[in-house]
């Protein structure tokens, strides 16, 4: 089974070669090494998928010890079960296609070796994350992907905006990691181990255990799961911790496709699915997951309909789709969540890379208001974007149809209040999804050309090295939904022991037996959304403007992304700077130094100066002092000496 490790370490090998010897082997060499390694990894990933998932030959590969102290004993291990097999497959295949695409997309960049080294390094960390066998190794991959994401968002480091976005992404993720780390600490406190298997098998015995956290006693599993979920919220850009994702679009488009759509941002969903054996015993935590998932799904969709930057629309769409995956997990339909993760990886990567091809064609223009009327000029990209959007909107028989349907049906079938909340918002978000997707298509490709002539004259189809990988993704976007249906089937044990669902949480099972209207509704609202976009942006293009003026506050509220950036700026950024400045100037300067060393030094000096004044040089001053002294001694002798 040792060759299971191949797809994980091949990208690392490529990254090290391209990173350290980039200047020696040059751009071409770096591309060859990383893409070659990634290609082999992708093939191996398919082998792993076949053996582990289809034939059920799970394995654990021991590498070496990490650190041990008392009961805390952490090893480097690779865990290959069904869940890992699916993730390795998705990550390697999508990453390989994006590697190839990048050859064309980054052709004119002066830092090609660095770019490819980062891309491969990212893939390695992502694979380390999904193959982790304990919490800390997962955290290692978790922070690793965050680091490379930071490096790649700021890849064009000359741009101040790219640097700002990179830091923002890292810090917001750190806020999430804060919860994740506390969760791990809580897990260790109670289980005395951080190894998955030991924790999973111990979870049922912890059902009523309580833990004292911050001076209060809480249900242990609930607290641990909610803390861990905070980490997932950060990485997967869920409501409240979502602000970094749209800004992350500052990075090169292949990065947006790989990291900020297909893989890294889905790590949170993966985490919840991986930890299903604990989450299953934490009903409140699952409700929290459902609530945040559903809220994010609708919240991000409302913003997406007003954005004008083509990549930002897709970014908010990603955010919204991640919400779907989360509430699927929240109603215990983990299989459905991972199913949507898989289909989404293909069609969203396709959409991003298609958008990249458009941006490429439009001479690096990203504003949809300056596009339009180009569909005849780049027909391949146009068709591919249609496929991606059809899959995203959940139109039969594209892949998104299968996965989104089963999620919404599961939410409905869970028969809980929050399940219905998720179902309702999910349906609404499905309508908005179709609406903004076709808004994007119409604004970008149809109508009158709004770019200037120079740009229009230059519009051209992407080279084969770019569109061939897109075709690969498009094939995935079409067929993967049907092929992977066993993930949510009830009669096949697809997930083995990698995902635990308690018998009482049978939403996924029930989902197959819901009424017909529930099954038909998601696609119906999808078609409705397409129709709405057709009305707004083709039949009556003046409508959006009128609506925006009529409901100006709402429009501004959505256009400014619910004002989260402004709010956080005041709450956290400015107040931290204000505190920092004052603690430094006042706290350190005035108080500590003022009372401490400087104060004592000043006091000593002033005492000394006064003492100096005593030495006036006049004899009668001294004589007077002596007289006073004598008088004092005599007085004391008379009083105390008796």
């Amino acid at each position, binding site marked *: 089974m040792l060759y299971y490790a191949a797809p994980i370490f091949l990208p690392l090998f490529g990254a090290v070669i391209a990173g350290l010897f980039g200047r020696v082997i040059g751009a071409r060499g770096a591309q060859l090494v990383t893409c070659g390694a990634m290609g082999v990894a992708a093939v191996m990933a398919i082998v792993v998928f076949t053996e582990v998932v289809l034939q059920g030959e799970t394995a654990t590969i021991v590498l070496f010890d*990490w650190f041990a102290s008392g009961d*805390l004993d952490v090893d480097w291990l690779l865990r290959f079960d069904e869940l890992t097999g699916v993730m390795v497959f998705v990550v390697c295949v999508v990453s390989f296609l994006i590697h190839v695409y990048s050859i064309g997309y980054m052709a004119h960049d002066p830092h090609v070796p660095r770019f490819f080294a980062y891309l491969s390094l990212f893939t390695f960390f992502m694979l380390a994350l999904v193959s982790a066998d304990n919490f800390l190794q997962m955290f290692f991959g978790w922070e690793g992907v965050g680091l490379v994401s930071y490096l790649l968002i700021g890849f064009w480091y000359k741009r101040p905006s790219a*640097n700002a976005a*990179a830091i923002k992404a890292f810090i917001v993720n750190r806020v999430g990691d804060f919860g994740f780390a506390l969760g791990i600490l809580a897990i260790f406190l109670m289980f005395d181990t951080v190894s998955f298997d030991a924790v999973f098998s111990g979870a049922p*015995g912890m059902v*009523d255990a309580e833990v004292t956290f911050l001076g209060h006693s809480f249900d242990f599993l609930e607290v641990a799961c909610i803390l861990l979920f905070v980490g997932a919220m950060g990485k997967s850009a869920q409501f409240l911790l979502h602000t970094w994702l749209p800004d992350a679009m500052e990075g090169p488009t292949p990065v947006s496709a790989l990291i900020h759509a297909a893989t890294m941002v889905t790590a949170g969903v993966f985490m919840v699915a991986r930890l299903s054996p604990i989450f299953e015993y934490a009903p409140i935590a699952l409700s929290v997951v459902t609530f945040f998932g559903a809220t994010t799904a609708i919240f991000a969709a409302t913003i997406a309909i007003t954005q004008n930057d083509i990549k930002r629309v897709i970014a908010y769409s990603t955010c919204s789709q991640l919400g779907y995956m989360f509430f699927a997990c929240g109603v215990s339909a983990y299989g459905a969540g991972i199913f949507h993760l898989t289909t989404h990886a293909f069609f969203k990567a396709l959409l991003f890379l298609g958008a990249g091809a458009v941006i490429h064609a439009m001479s690096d223009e990203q504003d949809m208001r300056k596009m339009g009327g180009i569909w005849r000029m780049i027909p391949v990209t146009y068709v591919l974007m249609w496929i991606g959007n059809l899959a995203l909107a959940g139109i039969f028989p594209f892949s998104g149809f299968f996965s989104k349907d089963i999620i919404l049906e599961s939410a409905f079938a869970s028969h809980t209040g929050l399940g219905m909340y998720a179902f309702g918002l999910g349906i609404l978000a499905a309508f908005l999804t179709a609406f903004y997707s076709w808004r994007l298509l119409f604004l970008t490709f149809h109508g009158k050309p709004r770019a200037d002539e120079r740009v229009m004259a230059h519009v051209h189809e992407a080279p084969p090295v770019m569109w061939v990988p897109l075709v690969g993704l498009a094939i995935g976007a079409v067929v993967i939904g049907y092929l992977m249906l066993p993930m949510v089937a009830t009669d096949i044990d697809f997930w083995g022991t990698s995902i635990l669902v308690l018998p009482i949480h049978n939403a996924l099972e029930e989902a197959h037996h819901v009424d017909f209207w529930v099954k038909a509704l998601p696609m119906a609202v999808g078609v409705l959304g397409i129709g709405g976009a057709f009305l707004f942006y083709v039949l009556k293009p003046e409508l959006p403007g009128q609506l925006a003026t009529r409901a100006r506050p709402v429009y501004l509220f959505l256009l400014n992304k619910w004002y989260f950036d402004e709010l956080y700026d005041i709450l956290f950024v400015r107040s*931290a700077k204000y505190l920092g400045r004052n603690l430094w100037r006042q706290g*350190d300067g005035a108080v500590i130094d003022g009372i401490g060393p400087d104060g004592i030094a000043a006091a000593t000096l002033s005492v000394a100066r006064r003492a100096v004044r005593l030495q006036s040089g006049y004899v009668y001053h001294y004589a007077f002092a002596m007289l006073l002294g004598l008088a004092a001694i005599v007085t004391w002798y008379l009083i105390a000496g008796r």
Partner: protein
Amino acid sequence: MTDWPILSTVTFLPLVGVFFILLIRGDERQIAANSRHVALWTSVVTFALSIVLIADFDTTTAEFQFVEFVPWLPEHNIGYHLGVDGISIFFLILTTFLIPLCILASWEAIATRVREFMIAFLVMETLIVGVFCSLDFVMFYIFFEGQLIPMFLIIGIWGGARRVYSAFKFFLYTLVGSVLFLLAILFMYLDAGTTDIPMLLVHEFAPAIQTWLWLALFASFAVKLPMWPFHTWLPDAHVEAPTAGSVILAGILLKMGGYGFLRFSLPMLPEASAFFVPFIYSLSVVAIIYTSLVALMQQDMKKLIAYSSVAHMGIVTIGIFTFTGQGIEGGIIQMLSHGIVSAALFLCVGVVYDRTHTREIADYGGLVHRMPMYAFVLMVFTLAAIGLPGTSGFVGEFMVLVGAFQSNTWVAMLALTGVILGAAYMLWLYRRVIFGDLTKENLKSITDLNWREVGIFAPLVSLALVLGLYPEPFLDVLHVSVENLIAQTNGAPGLPIAETESVPVPTLAALN
């Protein structure tokens, strides 16, 4: 193992180098060149010898090893007593490891009074190594306070513009602590009738006395470490000190405070230590948050790193005072990691300071265009300072938090906020120095790392990664000594720690 007094050799070998430097004759340039070489080779040989120590080290015993004992004032039970255990040996090696790098870093940066500088450095090496292997309080005190003098001179003579103010501030701060420390030693001597550390370790002080002794020791160690609010000498001292001075200051001198807590406060005064846990926790947590916020607003690179050191030391003190294996080992690993990482960060500042003679963050920007290798090295240490898993910073920090979480969740949570702030100030620093457009005129011709500098950073980078990916060999050396230390603290009645240490899972669940 032979009877060769290897610890004495390691300790006093640098003084042999000093002797040779004093013998050098010739013109100014020749003296400078020869002093550099003598100093470098002396320190390299010292380092090589200290490697022999770890190679021969027995990890199965908590006893002091390589012990040397010569009666000095036998009628007063004061002797020349040297020895190391698993806790002190790493500090010793860290010292011998950093000194050659410091001398290399000063190769061109120190151009005046080179002979005196090298002498000061070698003398300091002897004194620091002496601190970590003394097993007699009188000797310890002499070494501990003695190293103030070369450091005072290094800051005061080869420092920046406000060097005199900083040197005095540094000296006075530490001296106040020292006075109380001396009083404590005198008292302990009168109480126990000896200054021999192994004997004092088994001597039991009355609880009422412990409190006062503990406070006196605390005054000294808290200033050294430094803990909030005794930290204000550190930013000033760092800013004015030459690069090598900052490296030693951050890399080793700060660790003496932590070492003092581990060697004296905890095992000799266990009850007082337990009593003061809330006090230490509060100061540490305040230090982490307060100095992280202050670091965020610094405009001087060295000041920023200096403030971040205070925050990192806050993690260390939390770890030490958890009284758990993970916490204490984590605290030690964190000190070692900080010794490598902060030393490297100051060396990084030194690299660009040597080229441009400014430490203002605003004077930099876009260095990556001209210095890709430098950008890589600084990135590695920035990440290690942030505590990214896989770097040395993570292991120690995480182990400390594991220990802290067991004893107080508030402390663990508040300490974790430092993780967020740490990322903020370090990445912001990195961005302002390395990224962006290269617009400053004087930076357009700046050169990347030369071979000497690569030679300095290569071992530091590898250590930071090894300690992060495979710290087992280091922890192996620590385990027995730390267990012994915990046993010593548990010997005292009324410690709240004993339960949290060994509670099996089911009982805890059943308790609730």
